[in-house]
């Protein structure tokens, strides 16, 4: 029972409390670039989630084999293999999405959410927990992208998932699908997520070094620092 609860917690932390985009501020570049429409935002979110779950499982399974000194190259190789598989699949079955995502699809290789989870979680936890962690983070990423994509597409292009909305389609506020609008929507949603997390008793994400990070409690780097300080 206790273990089951632990698994649920690993999943749910990725949704709000440790949402990779809105609370950890990772993966900002694909977030801003691919949220000009709901379709590409969800496509990006799902593609990254698949890679995240698979790479988390593989890295977790190999965590005792990979030497510590070359772990980053090893992680990158594993992630790149999965990205290649996803890229080929998207190219074969969803060529329109491939065109929309463009360079951001292969760039999932260097997506810091995936590398971050590998380093912070998968390399220290068993396979099942890592898979659930990856799934939670992936869903959090996708949901955040979906919300941003929806706001930006509705206001900036006057449509939702390609379906045009009466009045708005004739007078779209172009600024929302341009970079400045992206940053603006991102900031507002981030503030909302912060508020939501705070109302659930989680600390606010703030700019005050490691302590201000929502992940501070179970972060390896932070724990190492604490150990050093106490030693």
């Amino acid at each position, binding site marked *: 029972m206790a273990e089951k609860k632990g698994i649920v917690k690993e999943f749910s932390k990725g949704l709000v409390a440790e949402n990779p985009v809105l609370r950890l501020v990772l993966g900002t570049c694909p977030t801003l670039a691919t949220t000009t429409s709901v379709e590409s935002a969800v496509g990006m979110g799902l593609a990254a989630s698949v890679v995240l779950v698979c790479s988390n499982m593989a890295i977790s399974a190999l965590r005792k084999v990979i030497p510590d000194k070359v772990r980053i190259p090893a992680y990158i190789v594993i992630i790149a293999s999965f990205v290649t598989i996803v890229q080929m699949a998207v190219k074969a079955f969803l060529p329109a999405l491939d065109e929309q995502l463009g360079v951001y699809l292969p760039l999932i290789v260097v997506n810091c959410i995936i590398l971050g989870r590998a380093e912070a979680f998968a390399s220290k936890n068993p396979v099942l927990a890592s898979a659930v962690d990856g799934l939670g983070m992936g869903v959090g990423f996708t949901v955040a992208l979906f919300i941003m994509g929806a706001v930006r597409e509705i206001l900036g292009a006057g449509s939702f998932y390609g379906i045009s909305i009466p009045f708005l389609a004739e*007078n*779209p*506020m*172009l*600024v*929302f699908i*341009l970079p*400045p609008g992206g940053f*603006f929507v991102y900031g507002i949603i981030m503030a909302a997520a912060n508020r939501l997390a705070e109302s659930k008793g989680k600390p606010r994400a703030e700019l005050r070094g490691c302590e201000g990070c929502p992940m501070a409690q179970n972060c390896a780097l932070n724990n190492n620092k604490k150990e050093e300080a106490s030693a």
Partner: protein
Amino acid sequence: MAKRLTVSASPHVRSNETTTGIMLDVILALVPALVMSAIYFGTRALVLTAVTVASCVLSEFVCRKVMKRDNTLGDLSAVVTGIILAFNLPATLPLWMAAIGGIIAIVVVKQMFGGIGQNFVNPAMTARIILMVSFPTAMANWVVSGSDAWSADAITAATPMATLAGAQGGNIAAVSDSLPSIAEMLLGRHGGSMGEVCSIALICGGFYLLLRKVISPIIPFFFIGTVAVFMFFAGGGNIEFVIYQLLGGGLMLGAFFMATDYATSPITKKGKIIFAIGCGLITSVIRIYGSLPEGVSFSIILMNILVPHIENLTLSKPFGFVKEKKQKKEVEA
């Protein structure tokens, strides 16, 4: 000697100047230009102004209520923002777009950063730029002044700025057919934003503010001066070209009413000069080399962002202050 000695905390000398008073002066200074725009564009100019002012005032009221802060409507700054915003819009702009502009100016630019005095860029200017980026066609629908802006078939025309952009190297003669005369430029009988067309009215308003000491002459002087010098060289010494450049577009409105905004311009004298020259340079560079015909709004916003750094670099030295000599770092044992 019956007077009792009052003991109070400093400051002991107070000025009677209040924010409300200053804002009233600015509103008064804007009235001539408003009257002229009503003459040129008909009642629609007044309706547009009313909409932006109402939208600004309402946003300010609601925003302060929601944020549980004091009501600051009394300082009239929202009214000034509304009027200046309307001046920056074409008279034909759909009214709901103008209302969105007011909301952006007050909620996003002003209140989200803490209200009056805390905004780091000029609210009206930013709202204009966001509207311009969002609704490029509606924001470039210039009608010739004198035609009724209410009617759908009002005569549209290129602004003098767009025409001048076609004059390569200050060669005015090539485009003189489509340019209004200098007298028309001064009086405002040409296409452009609602409040920027009549240069004389704006200059009168500007001088009123200078006389009342609401604004210091440094920023308008160096802003307009830099543009004049730059255009003199860019136009190959053609004085007529310089005059058109000075009277066209939003330069007078920007230099007197927007670049001088207290919250977004430097306090120090040196800082003001640097700020104004920067505004002038960016305006001129956009006008001559950029793809847009007009650059006043972008130049003011860009320099607004630099103000904290300008102020840091131009802080005045306290009397008798000696710069600390750099000590050599002691080698750690």
